[in-house]
């Protein structure tokens, strides 16, 4: 079996595309999800129309700009300029202070700030609204304290657990790990097995004295190792580039990951035994594995918000359970006692897929 594994490594290392998928992908994905596809806001360009120009309005403006979330693009001088500023497209929000802002606040206790937000991206608009209001509210609280007034309204003070900065990287990393392990393990093995079928070398291997189980093991062993290296790369990247914590046991995380890798490899063998060409294997892995993994695993879209039927479907997604496990270990830092059920489900799926794939592999020989 050793020569088999060695030869498999030669295939991988000599194929530029495999190398790219194996080692370029994880880095690119983590960086992409981490930096580009972010739901945090940072350095949003705003304009301020200060009709009052008193010390309170200036102080609020300073608070906004120094918060780190906003950058002052321009100071407008009249309402007519607002639309033009949005049309130029370089700002996302205009903060408008009404006339005699400080005076009104002093006299009547109420003064208005209007927020005009570009909502062509609704999500971002919501975020901008929340952040701006948050800053202004905290300022008005401060002001009230200074003036010795006690606020009569009840103020909610949300405290975010496990991801106090609400950083989207924390949400994406477990998902990216899942997708990449799935991709590398299932897609690469299924493609490499169907390639041997296509060129005819599979026949030559089958007539050799190697047992089916030896062929399968020889074929998948290199991918177990490479997936594992991939996992380490992703974890290192997320730890050092994005400060993603691993609050639980690393050993436990690695063990659970190996379980998931083995499950994905079994799926890959299963796919290879039903597809006749490399393209077919690739399409099958893409549509049958990758898309559901992304859409139904709770990676991007929360499962609780799905229609009931889809929630049921998500139960059979191995990735769903794995993501729960990874989040538990990395973010909550809890032990096996809190996710033994998920682990058991994953284990059952793994055994099921291995049995299926070995059976399929054998019947093909009959």
């Amino acid at each position: 079996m050793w020569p088999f594994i060695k030869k498999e490594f030669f295939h991988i290392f000599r194929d530029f595309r495999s190398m790219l998928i194996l080692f370029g992908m994880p880095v690119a994905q983590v960086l992409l999800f981490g930096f580009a596809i972010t739901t945090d806001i940072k350095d949003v360009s705003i304009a301020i129309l200060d009709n009052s120009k008193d010390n309170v309005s200036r102080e609020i403006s300073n608070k906004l700009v120094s918060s780190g979330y906003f950058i002052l693009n321009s100071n407008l001088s009249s309402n007519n300029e607002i639309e033009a500023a949005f049309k130029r497209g370089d700002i996302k929000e205009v903060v408008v202070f009404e006339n005699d802002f400080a005076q009104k606040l002093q006299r009547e206790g109420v003064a208005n700030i209007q927020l005009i937000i570009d909502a062509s991206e609704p999500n971002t608009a919501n975020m901008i609204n929340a952040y701006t209001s948050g800053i202004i509210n905290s300022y008005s609280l401060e002001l009230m304290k200074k003036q010795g007034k006690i606020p009569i309204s009840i103020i909610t003070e949300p405290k975010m657990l496990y991801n106090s900065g609400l950083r989207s990287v924390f949400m994406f990393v477990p998902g990216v790990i899942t997708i990449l392990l799935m991709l590398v393990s299932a897609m690469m093995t299924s493609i490499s097995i169907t390639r041997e079928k296509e060129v005819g070398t599979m026949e030559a291997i089958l007539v050799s004295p190697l047992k089916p189980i030896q062929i399968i093991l020889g074929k998948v062993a290199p991918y177990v190792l490479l997936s594992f290296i991939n996992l380490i790369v992703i974890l290192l990247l997320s730890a050092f580039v994005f400060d993603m914590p691993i609050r639980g046991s690393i050993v436990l995380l690695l063990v659970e990951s190996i379980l998931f890798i083995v499950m994905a490899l079994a799926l890959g063998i299963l796919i290879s035994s039903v597809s006749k060409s490399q393209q077919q294997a690739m399409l099958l892995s893409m549509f049958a594995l990758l898309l559901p993994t992304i859409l139904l695993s709770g990676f991007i879209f929360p499962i609780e918000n799905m229609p009931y039927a889809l929630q049921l479907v998500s139960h059979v997604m191995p990735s769903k359970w794995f993501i729960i496990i990874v989040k538990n270990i990395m973010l909550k830092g809890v032990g096996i006692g809190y996710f033994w059920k998920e682990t058991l489900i994953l284990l059952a799926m793994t055994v099921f897929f291995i049995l299926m794939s070995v059976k399929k592999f054998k019947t093909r020989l009959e």
Partner: protein
Amino acid sequence: MKDDDHIIVVENLVKKFGSFVANDNLNFFVKRGEIFGFLGANGAGKTTAIKILSGLSKPSSGKANVAGFDVGRQSEKVKRNIGYMSQRFSLYDDLTVKENFRFYGGIYGLSAKAIKQKTAHLLQKLDMLDYKDMLLSKIPLGWKQKLAFSVAVMHDPAVVFLDEPTGGVDPITRRQFWELIYDKASEGTTIFVTTHYMDEAEYCERVSIMSEGRIEALDTPSNLKKKYRVNTMDEVFVRIARSDT
């Protein structure tokens, strides 16, 4: 005693796929060291028979013995004693010549030392020692086929199955290929070969011609030509193939 000089013995072999009968009651034997031509039109059932004889698939009924082992019950031992090469030759394009030898030597359980010796010996025979570190994708088709044959006989099997080994190769290379086959047969290895080239059928010691799952004729090329009163194997083949349709 009989089994000793009959390396392949097939008795009442039947293979069915559902209601389709691919091999209909085959009965024949192949002598040790013989070059046996296994002919037939496409779809006549040759590949099915070869798959059974090489332990890849099991017979529906009947018996086949290869190198002294039953293909149904002892397929592991059968596999250990045969070599196999198909038209879609079995070498890896992204490995070098040497690495291909090392891989196949390895899966047949040869030691590193034996692999080295065999590789050097076989490459020298082909006059290809200088190419041992070249990627297979850079080597012309005819040479690849000769290499594939050398790889298939590397572990000194008792029987070598060649499934249309010379498909798509020019006549000169085909001739050289047959020289390799003769050379190997003279060492006592049995050659079981299928082909569509009737001039190659003339090179065989005995040939069988299959049609619609049955063996219609089995004899030496010269006897077959006499029997059908024709001058070439090509005509023999056409007679038999036409008598069915």
